[in-house]
């Protein structure tokens, strides 16, 4: 990135494109430059204010009063531009409208609600791992485990019909691309938007969803009047948009981490109760959700600069999660670290409402692997999958030797 001389008010300016393929392939050097340039950096290409340090990212995430979401959490400013789909009632909403849908999802996806799924998901993970290992020691961990496991358990938990589940990943991929600029990644997804949106919309209807599951729970909340019946389908849609791709990439991240850090895999095998810590450390280290935008509701003072009212703020969650001002040896994947306080799930009222679902999926899969697999090692060149918002793998060839 080229950082030009500070402007009159001392604000560093950069012409970098965080959504270029070069940065998407390896964002780490760009993030370091961004953090070192200052707590706030103006990205003139997109007319946005970038935060790369943990302190400012964390502060912006929790301050919904000054950094709103209802103008969109992507580059597009809903004050002036029409969203590509009806805005989310949770992700793209501010209090007070945000309150009721969020409250319902918090309950439906809360740790207590997930207890009934725990045993089943642990059993499902063991079956999947046995099947994969039986087919051979060498395989691609992305489709075989990271995609297969969430697709095996999550749509069932929501109550989706069996048919059409292959649409979930492409829909999510496009939704997360659409938070970025209208670049080639968005163009590549556009031809299927109408078809995928129609399919997702159809799955949100009460009569399509199973009588038990997260979807039915959301409709039951509408029957109690906690949300309106008009809101229920859009609240279900949030599960389908944000509940699959993110988890897939989180699992890919932790599988890549243990494949390339054999000492950490040994540690996890010795202490399987570290499975949740391992997953959160991977979420910190790789940040499956790299960025989100906010919009300033007023002229906001940040570290001696002013973000003008109505301007977009680009929060680099991934950069904050590797900010050496916050983390010792930030580039190391280390199960001895306490990753608590990372912003990979966000923070504040918009913090990932499905984080407990993701942790349960990861715990089930990692525990099953730790019981059965002695060593995990790379078995060929890896390949990234580029997305404007997500840090993703297309392929992680691995060799797993049974215990």
């Amino acid at each position, binding site marked *: 990135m080229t950082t030009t001389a500070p402007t009159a008010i001392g604000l560093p300016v950069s012409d970098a494109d965080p959504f270029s393929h070069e940065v998407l392939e390896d964002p780490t050097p760009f993030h370091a430059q961004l953090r070192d340039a200052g707590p706030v950096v103006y990205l003139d290409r997109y007319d946005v204010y970038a935060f790369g340090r943990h302190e400012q990212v964390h502060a912006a995430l*929790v*301050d*919904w*009063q000054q950094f709103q979401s209802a103008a969109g959490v992507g580059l597009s400013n809903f004050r002036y531009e029409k969203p590509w789909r009806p805005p989310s009632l949770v992700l793209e909403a501010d*209090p*007070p*409208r945000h*309150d*009721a849908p969020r*409250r319902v999802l*918090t309950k439906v996806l*809360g*740790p*207590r609600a997930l207890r009934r799924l725990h045993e089943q998901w642990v059993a499902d993970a063991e079956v999947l791992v046995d099947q994969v290992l039986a087919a051979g020691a060498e395989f691609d961990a992305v489709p075989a485990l990271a995609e297969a496991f969430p697709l095996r358990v999550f749509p069932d938990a929501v109550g989706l019909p069996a048919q059409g589940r292959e649409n979930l990943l492409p829909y999510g991929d496009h939704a997360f691309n659409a938070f970025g600029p209208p670049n080639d990644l968005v163009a590549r997804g556009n031809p299927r938007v109408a078809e995928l949106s129609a399919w997702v919309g159809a799955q949100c209807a009460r009569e399509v969803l199973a009588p038990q599951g997260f979807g039915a729970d959301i409709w039951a909340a509408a029957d*109690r*009047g*906690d*949300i*309106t019946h008009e*809101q229920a389908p859009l609240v279900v849609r949030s599960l389908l948009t944000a509940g699959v791709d993110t988890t897939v990439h989180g699992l890919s991240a932790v599988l890549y981490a243990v494949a390339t850090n054999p000492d950490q895999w040994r540690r996890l095998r010795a202490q399987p*109760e*570290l499975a*949740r*810590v391992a997953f*959160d450390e991977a979420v910190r280290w790789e940040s499956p959700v790299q960025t989100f935008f906010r919009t300033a509701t007023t002229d906001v003072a940040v570290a001696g600069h002013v973000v003008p009212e109505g301007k977009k703020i680009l929060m680099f969650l991934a950069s904050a999660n590797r900010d050496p001002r916050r983390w010792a040896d930030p580039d190391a994947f280390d199960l001895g670290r*306490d*990753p*608590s*306080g*990372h912003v990979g*799930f966000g*923070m*504040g*009222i918009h*913090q990932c409402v499905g*984080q*407990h679902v993701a*942790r349960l999926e990861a715990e089930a899969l990692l525990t099953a692997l730790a019981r059965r697999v002695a060593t995990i090692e790379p078995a060929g060149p890896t390949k990234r999958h580029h997305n404007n918002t997500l840090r993703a793998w297309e392929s992680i060839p691995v060799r797993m030797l049974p215990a």
Partner: protein
Amino acid sequence: MHETTERTHAAPGGMATDVAMLRVTAKTRVAAGVVTVQLAAPDGGRLPDWTPGAHVDLTFGNGLTRQYSLCGDRWDAGTYRVGVLLEPAGRGGSSYVHEQLEPGHLVGIGGPRNNFPLVPADAYLFIAGGIGITPLLPMIAQAQLLGADWRLLYGGRQRSSMAFLDELAGYGERVQVAPQDEVGLLDLPTFLGRPRAGVRVYCCGPAPLLAAAEATCADWPPHSLRTERFVAAEQGAPALSTPFEVELRRSGRRVTVTPDVSVLQAVAGAGVDVLSSCRQGTCGTCETAVLDGRPDHRDSLLDDDERAAGDCMYICVSRSCTERLVLDL
């Protein structure tokens, strides 16, 4: 009186060393027998977020814990406001606030929690009796902000004892003030009118008013009426403000939790990592199973039934009512 028993559990010098503490920044008399208390974090930072209808548990220097509805402005992230009615026949919480609590004092804080949330609707009918106006104030502000059709019927013994009339005056004809000594008991049937869908009725006040609202709404569609009744939460034992012991059964360790650290910090100090995130009792990441002992819940997540079950706690904020807690760690 119960006061003597309760006092014996208070730490010497009150709770000034506890971790979850707020400072009283103002105390204002707003009506006969009603004060508002403004609270802020000792470091002036953001307080945990809340929604209209939420309440906090405040623990005072005399060891009493009481629940109060938040009645301030949620857009002011650094301040909570509660309204407190002096109840001479009460068990000592309100008289402590009225007679002893002063700006500069520290109080223990739990929550905020919301058992009385404002749900989306086209129209709202609010009914307040006396100090029951407090949770409705932020609801009204919100209904107004959303452009909803709303009206308030506000009753009290006499005008001088009814708080916040000045703040409500700005809403004009949407607010009906009905002091009992001027107009008699609240006329709920007239105010509510015929049953209809799409309207939510919110009522907070003394038990007879809630009963009257329930009777009047009997023919309304299900879930039309939402009420809040503050029953004095009878905990088996008052929250401890003295050190307590936590046994980590799976790791076979014991750790003493002193008033200046959280259970999460104490457990980490003993070498047992528990994942956490918000450290405010709102996200749920640090949920920990309780095997024995009675938690002092201070989170924003568990409802009353879940609290009563006592089988789990959020150790970033919650503490102990018993001298020993056994956790599945």
